[in-house]
């Protein structure tokens, strides 16, 4: 069976805000889908595959949306919309299970009890929740161990947060547009959340939706939208989240197996990548990605990201929309935002921080890795 080439033909973020008055998770997810289809020059009549996560409805979102949109028969993806879901959908299209897939997510009106951390940050596991563990503390423990083991000063990871926030500060679409610029010292001066993470090392919370449209290169040839090719991708896991102790040794190489597979599929080298749309849930994660994805030796990532290297004008431009720290973090659809931003970079259509001549983008969201190319 001949395998078909898969391309992204639509990519869209709805307006993002701390609170979207009057919106619901379904309404922003619908807006994201409509925006992405408009971008592609397609309609729901063209769609025969869906991966949809409205709010925190982890099961059945695609089934519900496919029916609600009046699509008669459709393939459904099981991954949370993001890089892995793109890989899953691309495999389905390649295999002929479907032709055109919409991936979408969005959240509004879910995080209302501001005295507590966001609901998606409060794992309920029997041996986790009782200790007051929540997402920042979970991720802080591996970072703490890394800083200790490799004698890395906190300023070096605070620098990462400053760069990302400054990217967002320049992005008119970012929730925190105009906030900044920040220095590493500013990050370290913000209040402590979970040692070593200060407030400005962490993701923000907001509302909004994002969506992508994937189809075959053959179908894309009839469209005006500039296609972006899916070059390769994979995902890996170390076990159930928020269940076992999140030590450095368990999480450090999360994504390495996926990255190796993605580069092998794409037939390109690490040096070929122009822009790095990494999921910035916490500042040290960026360092971890560069090490797990073999851009440097373990323990050397903090040096790799130093100075101007990760600026939009540097060798390793990261998180060019401002990411979860400044652009938007909705609970789950920020995973899709990474892919949306990679597509916009490769089309030369970034709202800010355009990387000149970007031809290949590497997207990484925890253990999910995706390579896209012009």
């Amino acid at each position: 069976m001949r395998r078909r080439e898969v391309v992204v033909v639509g990519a869209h973020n709805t307006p993002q805000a701390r609170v979207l008055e009057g919106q619901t998770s379904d309404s922003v997810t619908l807006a994201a889908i409509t925006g992405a289809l408009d971008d592609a020059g397609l309609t729901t009549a063209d769609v025969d595959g869906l991966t949809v996560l409205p709010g925190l409805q982890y099961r059945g979102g695609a089934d519900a949306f496919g029916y609600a949109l009046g699509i008669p028969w459709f393939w459904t993806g099981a991954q949370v919309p993001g890089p892995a879901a793109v890989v899953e959908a691309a495999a389905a299209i390649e295999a002929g299970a479907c032709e055109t897939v919409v991936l979408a997510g969005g959240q509004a009106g879910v995080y209302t009890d501001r005295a507590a951390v966001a609901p998606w940050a409060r794992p309920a596991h029997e041996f986790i929740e009782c200790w007051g563990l929540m997402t920042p503390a979970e991720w802080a423990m591996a970072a703490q161990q890394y800083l200790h083991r490799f004698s890395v000063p906190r300023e070096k990871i605070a620098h990462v947060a400053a760069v990302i926030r400054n990217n967002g500060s320049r992005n008119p679409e970012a929730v925190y547009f105009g906030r900044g610029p920040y220095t590493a010292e500013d990050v370290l001066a913000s209040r402590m959340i979970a040692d070593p993470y200060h407030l400005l090392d962490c993701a923000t919370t907001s509302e909004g939706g994002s969506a992508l449209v994937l189809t075959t290169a053959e179908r894309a040839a009839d469209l005006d939208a500039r296609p972006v090719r899916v070059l390769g991708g994979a995902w890996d896991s170390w076990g159930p989240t928020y269940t076992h102790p999140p030590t450095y040794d368990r999480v450090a190489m999360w994504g390495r197996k996926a990255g190796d597979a993605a580069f092998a599929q794409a037939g390109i080298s690490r040096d070929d990548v122009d822009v790095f749309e990494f999921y910035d849930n916490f500042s040290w994660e960026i360092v971890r990605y560069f090490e797990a994805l073999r851009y440097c030796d373990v323990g050397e990532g903090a040096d790799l990201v130093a100075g101007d290297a990760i600026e939009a004008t540097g060798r390793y431009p990261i998180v060019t929309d401002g990411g979860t720290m400044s652009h938007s973090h909705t609970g789950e659809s920020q995973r899709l935002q990474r892919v949306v931003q990679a597509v916009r970079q490769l089309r030369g259509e970034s709202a800010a921080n355009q990387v000149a001549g970007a031809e290949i983008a590497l997207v990484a969201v925890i253990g999910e890795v995706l390579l896209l190319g012009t």
Partner: protein
Amino acid sequence: MTAPDRPVPHPSPLTQPFWAACRDGRLLVQRCDKCGTHVFTPQEFCRECHADALTWVESAGAGHVVTFTVVWRPQTPAFGVPYVVAVVRLDEGYEMVTNIVGSSPDAVTIGAAVRVRFTPVTDAITLPCFELVA
């Protein structure tokens, strides 16, 4: 508005012996009958050799801090800040998430020796916290 209660575990048939023993001041762990590996959290079979014969044994409750974080933004207002969440490696060779209690958070370090300190939170649930060994 009063602070919500601290979330407490809801033991399952698999985990009930662990929590029952905590209430009696004993730290239990499953040990594989076949290969001797200590298994935690409670499982149906051994991660090393996949034998399904796991027996509850008593841990000495001594270990060291693998990593930790001092939390200032609580999970919910039920937790007074700052509090220390840690991963402790027991001398038997398994790891637990826990709280380090009984000392200033500033005193906690990676590698510090700790021992279990049982902390009742409800009539039914006693948590196996840990404290620094002087």
